Every structure is written in structure tokens, then in C-alpha cells.
């Protein structure tokens, strides 16, 4: 019985727990950003060339600033840093709160009356 209880306690520390622990360690246990929602295709650009380490900013924050010298989507940041999207959102919230990055929200096709974007996509794809 005692053995069973013990194994239940430790059940989460199996192979499947691997990806869970590190991402939340990176965010200090936080699962939600302090600000912003960050769509997968929100575009992120750094507002500065580089940032010196300061309290509250970890290496992952600095890595995002470095990466976003060239504009990147939230999904691209997550892929390049090999972090889950949820983790990247938390880190981006910290950076937005410090004005270290600026965010461009994606176009919402729903409810938009002009068709110019659709036509631009069609022409752009033809020209590829």
C-alpha cells in the first residue's frame, strides 16, 4: 500500500514530465504573461540593439531580444528557442512590460471589409 502511494506521488516525474518542468522553471513558475495575449503569429521586434542582464531578466529573455532584432512571430521564437509557446508568451509579457519589444498583432480576417489583403496574397503567391 505504502509502495503504491509512493509510486502515485512520483507518477508525474516520468518521461512525460520532462518537457513540463523546464519551461515553467524558465518563467519562475508562471503560466500566464503579465501583459498581452500573444497570438502565434503576433510579430515581435526588439526595441533595442541589445539588453544588459538585469534582475528579472533571464538568458531566455535576452535570447528573445537578440532573436527579434529581425522581426519574428511568436511561433518562430518558440521554435528557435525550443521552448513551448506558453512559456514564450510569459517571457514576452515581461519584455513588453519593460518596453524591450514591440508587438504587431495579426490581421483578423473576420469582419474586415476590404479584400485587398486577399488579393495581395493571391498575387504574392503567383509571383513566388
Amino acid at each position, binding site marked *: 500500500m505504502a509502495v503504491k502511494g509512493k509510486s502515485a506521488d512520483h507518477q*508525474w516525474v516520468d518521461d512525460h514530465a520532462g518537457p513540463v518542468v523546464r519551461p515553467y522553471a524558465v518563467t519562475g513558475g508562471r503560466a500566464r504573461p503579465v501583459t498581452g495575449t500573444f*497570438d502565434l503569429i503576433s510579430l515581435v521586434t526588439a526595441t*533595442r540593439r541589445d539588453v544588459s542582464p538585469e534582475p528579472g531578466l533571464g538568458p531566455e529573455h535576452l535570447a528573445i531580444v537578440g532573436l527579434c532584432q529581425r522581426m519574428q*512571430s511568436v*511561433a518562430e521564437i518558440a521554435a528557435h528557442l525550443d521552448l513551448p509557446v506558453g512559456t514564450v508568451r510569459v517571457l514576452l509579457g515581461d519584455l513588453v512590460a519593460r518596453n524591450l519589444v514591440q508587438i504587431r498583432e495579426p490581421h483578423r*480576417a473576420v469582419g474586415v471589409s476590404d479584400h485587398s489583403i486577399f488579393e495581395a496574397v493571391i498575387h*504574392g*503567391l503567383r509571383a*513566388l
Partner: protein
Amino acid sequence: MDYGHSERPSEAAILPTAIKILVAGGFGAGKTTLVGAVSETRPLRTEEVLTESGVGIDDISGVEAKRTTTVAMDFGRITISDDLVLYLFGTPGQDRFWFVWDELALGAIGAVVLADTRRLADCFPSIDYFEERDTPFLVAVNCFEGARQYRLDEVQAALNLDPEVPVLLCDARRRESAKEVLISLVEHALKLREARRRVG
């Protein structure tokens, strides 16, 4: 270095807008292949860690009591112009990850449902999903070597599709073919919008 200017704030004015197209279909239907065929770079992979319920992930206390899982999405990027970037997202194939799709589908201009005629039923869930949400979509039949070729009307009938849903053949490995699929989708989405605007 390709970013020689230091006056970053001025770039805000020319920050491009991003839009997305989904690529759905059953496991092994060629989603990542199609994304890779038209994207600028090889497909990237992004992951989301989810709890079993998949909702209310605002607190990780008690996470040890929940089963967690990682959902991977492959995606690619096509820079259309200086002010427009198109992202292609391959949707996770498993049914129980539809809550991820909800975020993916939000704001998507349309979806490509890739069908493999050897396992046609695999794309039923994708079709149901997009039909229910009024997301413009088309069905692209990926022509696998060795698979029996079906006529498009046979596929259309087998999938019980609305007659207005385009069905076309493609080879997801070929850039030109993948491009044609995307162009057809955006044309279809535009046509639907115009039709809806006339009605509404």
C-alpha cells in the same frame, strides 16, 4: 548585419501584418511536406504543453495531478511583401487536440484539408471542424505514388462535400502544386467573403 539603422521606433510604421492559413488532414497526409514545399525555410516546429483538459491553463499548481502532453505544430513562412507575411500551420492530427485548433483557427483566412485516398476517412474530422466554424476550406487530394487514382467527383461524393467546396489534386512535395493549392484556397475564401457580403 542587415539591420543597420539604429532608429528602431521609426520601423513601427512599416511593421508587416501577419496572416495565416491552416493545413489540416489525417496523420501522414502530407501536411508538413506541403508546408515545406512552399515555405521560405524548412518547416519549423513549435510545441505547446497542455494539460489533459486543455482548458484553464492559468495555474500550474496541482500540475502533478494532471496528465500533461505536448502538441507539436509544424509551420512555415512566406513573405508576400514588405508589409504582408503569410504563415502556414500544419494542424495537430489527433482529434483530442482540437482545443489547440481553436486558437489556430482563430483569424485564419482559410484551411487546406489534405486527403489521402487510401485513408479518406482520416480527413473527416478536419472537414467537420471547418464546416462547423464557417472557415473557408478546400480539399486537396495528395497523389501518393501507388495509390489508386480517383476522380475528383468521386472524392467529392465520398466526402459528402458541399458542392461549392473546391476539390483538387495535388502533389504536396512539389512547390508549384502546393502554390496552386494555396492560390485556389485564397481565391475560394475571397469568393465566399464577397458572396456573404452581398447576402449580409
